[in-house]
């Protein structure tokens, strides 16, 4: 990948590297030429890696004390909170960590949407990323079931019941998923097993995600192809590592604010009531990061239709690179698409908000409008705007708008302001 071959200095290192080129890999990761104009929206890859490692480490410790049994799970969580040394800290990091993970992944995804990072030649990075996102949702959902509170139980009941909408075999599939005739102890056991497995699958996909990234290299705010290495790039270390470290620390301050001062604000109070199959909570709501999809699900009066639409909302993202017809990557140079991008952001936030509200009256209307726009954005707006839009002039290189400001000062200033 790099122009010049890496040669270890010592004889022993060379001997080892000839047999397993780990040192070459290390040198590649250190020297990896990165566009020098990456803004802070590009620091979320590193932040997400931190989130994954944090969830795995705290999760392994929690699993040492947690008991996956319907009669004991709730009590074992209280045991962690009260009797395990710093158990409260480890559990609050893990539970708030899930929310922080999703916060970061949503910023990461919308960054990709704004700057066209999903477009050729980065389609495979995008698709692997979506697979990671799907697995994250599965892991988070199953993790929320483990404390076996009221929301755990009823959330699991609602979500697993979705599969019963499948014609003919739906009920059999649901029973098979449960391992019983309702959400019960076998369900809890398998959810725990899968909840432990999925993060390692994600870890594997993260390696592929980064590998696929290192083939074409990073996209950048200007969205143009750059020569690597060149005066447009910097080596990953120390330039990007220190910048990622700074952004990560700011992120950790917010994270710590939640963990230490409002550890339960993102959860639902009903989940501190032990699961009771005989009492249904007044409103069953999923965790905040799943709310937009929940709103789409409930916006359709038909169960099967709702399920299909909800899954379509995610799977439509897989074909996004081929729905976008624009030759220009970055929305910085796409005046029309840029407006629609922000409408989409508002739309998803609105769907999230109505997902938390009862599905009636004005909320149901908003959910339906939001759902329709969500799909219109991808199916109609992206192909049509890409085709009709007159894009702004694009600079020849990252350095150009800065260095050759004399030639076309208006363009240079414009680009700098936007980026």
């Amino acid at each position, binding site marked *: 990948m790099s122009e010049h071959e890496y040669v270890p200095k010592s004889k022993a290192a060379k001997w080892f590297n000839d047999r397993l080129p780990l040192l070459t890999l290390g040198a590649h990761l250190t020297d990896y030429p990165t566009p020098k104009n990456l803004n802070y929206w590009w620091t979320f890859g590193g932040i997400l890696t931190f989130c994954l490692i944090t969830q795995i480490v705290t999760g392994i410790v929690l699993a040492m004390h947690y008991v996956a049994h319907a009669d004991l799970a709730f*009590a074992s969580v209280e045991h962690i909170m*009260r009797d395990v040394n710093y158990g409260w800290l480890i559990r609050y990091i893990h539970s708030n960590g899930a929310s922080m993970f999703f916060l970061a992944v949503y910023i990461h995804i919308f960054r990709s949407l704004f700057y066209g990072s999903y477009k050729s030649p980065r389609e495979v990075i995008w698709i692997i990323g979506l697979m990671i996102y799907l697995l994250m949702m599965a892991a988070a959902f199953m993790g929320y079931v483990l404390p076996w509170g009221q929301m755990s139980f009823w959330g699991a009941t609602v979500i697993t019941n979705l599969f019963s909408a499948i014609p003919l075999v739906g009920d059999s599939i649901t029973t098979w998923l449960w391992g019983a005739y309702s959400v019960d102890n076998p369900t809890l056991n398998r959810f725990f097993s899968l909840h432990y497995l999925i993060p390692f699958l994600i870890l594997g996909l993260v390696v592929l995600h980064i590998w696929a990234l290192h083939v074409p290299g990073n996209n950048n705010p200007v969205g143009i192809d750059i020569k690597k290495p060149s005066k447009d790039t910097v080596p990953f270390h*120390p330039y990007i590592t220190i910048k990622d470290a700074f952004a990560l620390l700011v992120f950790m301050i917010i994270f710590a604010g939640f963990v230490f001062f409002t550890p339960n604000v993102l959860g639902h*109070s009903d989940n501190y009531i032990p699961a009771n199959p005989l009492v249904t909570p007044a409103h069953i709501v999923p965790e905040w990061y799943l709310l937009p999809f929940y709103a789409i699900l409930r916006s359709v009066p038909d169960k099967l239709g709702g399920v299909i639409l909800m899954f379509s909302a995610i799977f439509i993202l897989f074909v996004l690179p081929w729905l976008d017809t624009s030759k220009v990557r970055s929305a910085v140079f796409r005046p029309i698409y840029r407006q629609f991008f922000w409408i989409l952001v508002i739309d998803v936030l609105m769907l999230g908000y109505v997902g938390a509200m009862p599905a009636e009256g004005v909320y149901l209307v908003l959910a339906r409008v939001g759902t329709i726009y969500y799909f219109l954005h991808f199916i109609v707006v992206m192909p049509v705007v890409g085709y009709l839009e007159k894009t702004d002039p694009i600079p020849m290189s990252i350095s150009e708008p*800065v260095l050759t400001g004399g030639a076309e000062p208006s363009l240079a200033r414009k680009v700098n302001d936007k980026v």
Partner: protein
Amino acid sequence: MIKSNIKLLVLSFLLLISLRPLQSAEMVDPIKVDWSFKGLTGTFDRASLQRGFQVYKEVCASCHSMQYLSYRNLGEPGGPEFSEQEVKAIAASFEIEDGPDSQGEMFTRPGKPSDKFKSPYPNVQAATAANGGAYPPDMSVLVKARKGGANYIYSVLVGYEDPPPGVTLDDGVYYNKYMVGNKIKMPNNLMDGLVEYADGTESTVDQMAKDVTTFLAWAAEPELEERHKTGVKVIIYLVLLTILVYLSMKKIWSRIDSEV
């Protein structure tokens, strides 16, 4: 351009949130109390916790269990902080079932600090049957299990009223202004002078409600004081480290002709 869009975004979101009050008009918001444990450096009022324990023991404990607490917790830092002797005496005042002994028989013995709080009923069914079909919820995490937390618990305790005209109540059902649905099966158990506080504080209904709510808030979050203290240290550490890393970053990036 991006900035003005973010403004638009924030504005439309605020508009959405302002729709919310239209929806939940029938619920009365709980009374806001200025608890000592609120805020970033909040701590529990030690004397209030001890009084609250007394109210719990003499009033609530006859129906409500607190199965996740142990008597030793009463002496731990950040809680009521009874002395070791007091904790032993409190534990010993309960008869705890233990066993089986070497003969296979269950037996009772005076409680030890390591014992869990003794429950008033052997199981949920017995508790439900003895209370007119309504299970008195376990109070270990009650404050965390109710929307509105401590404010809500306190409000319900002082929220008993005569039902408004037109509302008829079944036998054993009481009207409460703050309870979700306004109907509650727990009678109003607090009346002025009900308990005799050891520290001489006047035991008004309001005082007892505040004290026992404080006690329940601690029971739900016994780590609160340590959490707040550690949190302040962690944030200070992170902020200092962030400044150092920021300065290093500026220094490193000054080597090239690019802004960071």
